Structures are given as structure tokens and as C-alpha cells.
């Protein structure tokens, strides 16, 4: 491996039961270098590799089995300056002010869940941290959530822990990906998850704190500390917070939750491993074909993972664009098919190295026409994998959200401990 990945590798080999795994460390990078330079780096560690394959493994030191204390006594003179410094030194926060997770606040937050504090919701990669209700609550307090938000967070943790979501890949990758929470159903309005104008920005709604709590959970329970474990080259602002609701009243089509078979009265949380949204500005098209054409040519970017992974590229249509498309009789499935068929990238737009090293290796069937000069590359394996939502407010803008690719979105109902759906009247 190369040096920047050593800490992550050591942590993971320990988590998965091989703490004395042997490694040869090379200077970074290997990717992107001409092959002779790669070979030179490998040759430099060849003898080390042979030695480490043929000598006895070092003995694993026996660690004292002392569970880290769940409760910490903190002696601070100033609640804000000293306490915030304490949080940052421990790596608990995101660099902004965090609410102290006191006994009273955590207890109130636990109360909002309906579960006992030691109930285990899931384990979260890469640390395989055990996400109890109390720990989710502590993170929710720090992020600024209210107790009523706990059911959403529990559903989100369950969703991210599912194998198809690939949280392990998402947490450690160099790619700029963050789990995006999409809320559907009546609880969106009840719990203050905004779906209209400015939904991805600041405002008097709960999107910010709920998305922030997800990040705190991933940081503190999942263990993806930035730089050391979370290897994002740059990341994106959604790694601070990334939460929205679908604008169901403004949509001409059934909701994402309805598409996935949930009853109208059941609220859901869908988690997707998403890049930052990219604007599609079309103030001028007056017909479906025009709006869709503008969408196609905005979303056909070469530098996205949906090109070479079996993912779910996502189009978030603003209500006005959606109305223009729907008034000509397009269903959501028609839009998905159109994107799959028409939003394609000429293979000639990719570098030879990309084609050779990545595209044809990862998805040989998608690139089976590799040698044709007119080969065109779709953004998904099949039209059903394209996701289409409606959100936002006034204005002629839509958004394209590429995904990590090596992930499938997961939708979970927001349920009480007895398995029945949480309803708005439960929060009065």
C-alpha cells in the first residue's frame, strides 16, 4: 500500500481480526503514474515483501480489555471555549459549535426514540462501532437535534448498515461522497424536513441538524475520522450535513417511497451515497424535449462514478421543470428511460488510460463496443436504476446528483419499537 492509507489499513486489519497483518509501504501515489515508475516503487520494496511473507508473524500484544467509559467527567471553566476545544481535541465534532451531550439532554433524546438506551440498532463501518440508542442520542444532541428527530436517525442508521449500501466503501474512499437522507411521507412536514425553496441551504428547518447528526454518527460510531480513516481527497459540503425531503405536493408523479412500494401514510427514509448536487439551469425550454435535452447534456460528465459502476444516478427535478415534462404525458418511468437512452457520453471523451484501466475492466459488458468509434456510454446498467425525484421551490432549476456508484440506495420505513409506523399525531 502507499503511506497515506496505512492508518486505515492497520485499523481495519485490527477490526477484522488480523492485527499483525504485514504490509510493505510505498511512497504515494501509484495510480496515475506511468508504469515504469510504478514498477520502480514495487522493486524498491520487493525484498521487504519476500521477507514479510517468509518470517513468523509478530505476536499480537494483549490489550487490557477495558471498555472505554461511556460517560466522561469534563472539568471546564468556560462551557463554550473550553468545551468546544475539548470536543475538537477528542475528534468528536465537525469544527463547528456542538451541544454538550449532558445526562439530561441525552436522556431526553433517548426518550424520543421509544427504545431503551442500550438497544442496538446496527454496527457501522469502518470501525464496526456498535450503534446503541444512547450513542445515537449523544450524537444527535451534539448536532443540535430535537428528540422528535430520533426515529429518522434510527431508520437512517438501519439503512446505512445494510450490505448493499456499502457504508464501508463510502466511509473510507477518496471519492467525494456523503450519505444523503431523503425523507418521504407525512413526517417530513411534522419533523421540519424541508422540501421546498432553498432545501439544500440554511433556513428555519431541521434539515441541517438531522443531516449533521448523521455525519456525527458516521464520525463517532462508524469511526471515519477525516484524513486518518476517511480518505476523501476533498470531500464536499454535504459531508457536514445532507438531508432533504421530496416535495410530494409539488410533484406530478408518485413519490420515491410509493415507487418502492410503501403505503401513503408510511413515512420513509432513503439513504443514498451521493456527490454534491450539480445545477441544471434551464429558464428557456417550454417543452419536455427541451428540458430533458438540457438535463441530458448537463449530466453527461466523464468524471463521475456512474459511468463505470453499477450505480443509481439521480435527477432531482425542480417543480417547474417537472410540470413542463409531465404536461406532455411523461411518466417518471418515461423520464428514467429517456435518461438511460439519451444521456450518453461518447467513449472518445475518455482518456485511453481510463478506458483501458478502468472502464473496460469494471464493466466489460457496458463497454463491449469499446472499439467502435461511435460508441456511447450510458450512466446506468439499466433504466430502472435511474432515480428521479421532485424537490425545490420556485424557479427553473433542477439538480443532478451523481452517486458513489459502488452503492445501492436503501429505503426504510420510520417505525416504532412495536413495528408500526410513526405518525404525525404521535408528535403532538
Amino acid at each position: 500500500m502507499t503511506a497515506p492509507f496505512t492508518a486505515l489499513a492497520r485499523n481495519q486489519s485490527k477490526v477484522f481480526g488480523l492485527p499483525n497483518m504485514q504490509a510493505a509501504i510505498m511512497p504515494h501515489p501509484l495510480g496515475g503514474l506511468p508504469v515504469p515508475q510504478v514498477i520502480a516503487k514495487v522493486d524498491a520494496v520487493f525484498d521487504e515483501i519476500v521477507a514479510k511473507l517468509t518470517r513468523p508473524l509478530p505476536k499480537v500484544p494483549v490489550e487490557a480489555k477495558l471498555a472505554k467509559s461511556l460517560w466522561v467527567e469534563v472539568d471546564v471553566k468556560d462551557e463554550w471555549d473550553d468545551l468546544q476545544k475539548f470536543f475538537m481535541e477528542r475528534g468528536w465534532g465537525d469544527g463547528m459549535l456542538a451541544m454538550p451531550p449532558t445526562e439530561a439532554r441525552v436522556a431526553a433524546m433517548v426518550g424520543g426514540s421509544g427504545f431503551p438506551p442500550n438497544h442496538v440498532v446496527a454496527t457501522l463501518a469502518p470501525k464496526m462501532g456498535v450503534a446503541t440508542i444512547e450513542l445515537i442520542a449523544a450524537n444527535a444532541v451534539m448536532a443540535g437535534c430535537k428528540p422528535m428527530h430520533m426515529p429518522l436517525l434510527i431508520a437512517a442508521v438501519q439503512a446505512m448498515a445494510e450490505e448493499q449500501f456499502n457504508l464501508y466503501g463510502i466511509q473510507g474512499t477518496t471519492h467525494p461522497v456523503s450519505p444523503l437522507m431523503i425523507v418521504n411521507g407525512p413526517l417530513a412536514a411534522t419533523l421540519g424536513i424541508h422540501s421546498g425553496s432553498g432545501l439544500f441551504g440554511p433556513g428555519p428547518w431541521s434539515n441541517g441538524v438531522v443531516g449533521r447528526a448523521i455525519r456525527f454518527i458516521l464520525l463517532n460510531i462508524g469511526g471515519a475520522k477525516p484524513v486518518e480513516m476517511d480518505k476523501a481527497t476533498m470531500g464536499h459540503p454535504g459531508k457536514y450535513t445532507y438531508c432533504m425531503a421530496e416535495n410530494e405536493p409539488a410533484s406530478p408523479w408518485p413519490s420515491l417511497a410509493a415507487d418502492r412500494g410503501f403505503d401513503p401514510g408510511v413515512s420513509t427514509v432513503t439513504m443514498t451515497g451521493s456527490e454534491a448536487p450539480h445545477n441544471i439551469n434551464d429558464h428557456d425550454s417550454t417543452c419536455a424535449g427541451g428540458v430533458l435535452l438540457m438535463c441530458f447534456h448537463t449530466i453527461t460528465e466523464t468524471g463521475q462514478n456512474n459511468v463505470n459502476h453499477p450505480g443509481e444516478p439521480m435527477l432531482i427535478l425542480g417543480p417547474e421543470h417537472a410540470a413542463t415534462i409531465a404536461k406532455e404525458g411523461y411518466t417518471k418511468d418515461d423520464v428514467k428511460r429517456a435518461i438511460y437512452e439519451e444521456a450518453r457520453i461518447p467513449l472518445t471523451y475518455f482518456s485511453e488510460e481510463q478506458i483501458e484501466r478502468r472502464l473496460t475492466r469494471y464493466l466489460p459488458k457496458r463497454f463491449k463496443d469499446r472499439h467502435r468509434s461511435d460508441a456511447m456510454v450510458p450512466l446506468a446498467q439499466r433504466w430502472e436504476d435511474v432515480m428521479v425525484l421532485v424537490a425545490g421551490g420556485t424557479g427553473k432549476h433542477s439538480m443532478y446528483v451523481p452517486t458513489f456508484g459502488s452503492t445501492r440506495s436503501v429505503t426504510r420505513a420510520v417505525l416504532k419499537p412495536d413495528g408500526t409506523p410513526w405518525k404525525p399525531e404521535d408528535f403532538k
Partner: protein
Amino acid sequence: MKLCSPEAQALPPSNFKTAPRPETLAGLRVGFLDNTKPPADKVMAHLDQRLRERFPGAQSFYVSKTAASVPATAEMMQSLKLNCDVVITGFGD
């Protein structure tokens, strides 16, 4: 002030019984698990060539993941276990 630490404890790892280390690779089966991050295939191929030059009779066995960001499957790991005496893989970029 008493605060609840937001950090989780990890599940204790399962006990791993490691394979005995060989004293030499001569005549052994060397596995290569390609994580598919370019240029892993070039790295593995070069190591394979050099190991064969250094250790007569060494054989190679290749397994490639389907993508860099997903784990090797249980089937892949089982095939490495059955067909190799030692395994080399790459991590990260």
C-alpha cells in the same frame, strides 16, 4: 460536567487462526488478490514475475475483485484459501 461520549466501542474481532509462515516461497502457490484500483494489475503481474525469477517452482493464482470499493466475496476468499500458500493484495490507491 458529565458528558456522554459519542464514540462507539467496536465489536470484538473474531479469533483469526493464521496460516503457518513458510521459510521460502520456492515451490509454493502465491495468490494475488487484485483490488482493481489501477495499476494493481501491473503491480501484481510484476511481483509475480519477480517471485518466479527468485523462487523456482513458485506458482501464481489470481483473483480480482469486481470493484475497488466492495469487499472480496466469500467465494473469492475461499478460492484463495484453497489454492494458495500465501497471498499478496493491495490496499487503497
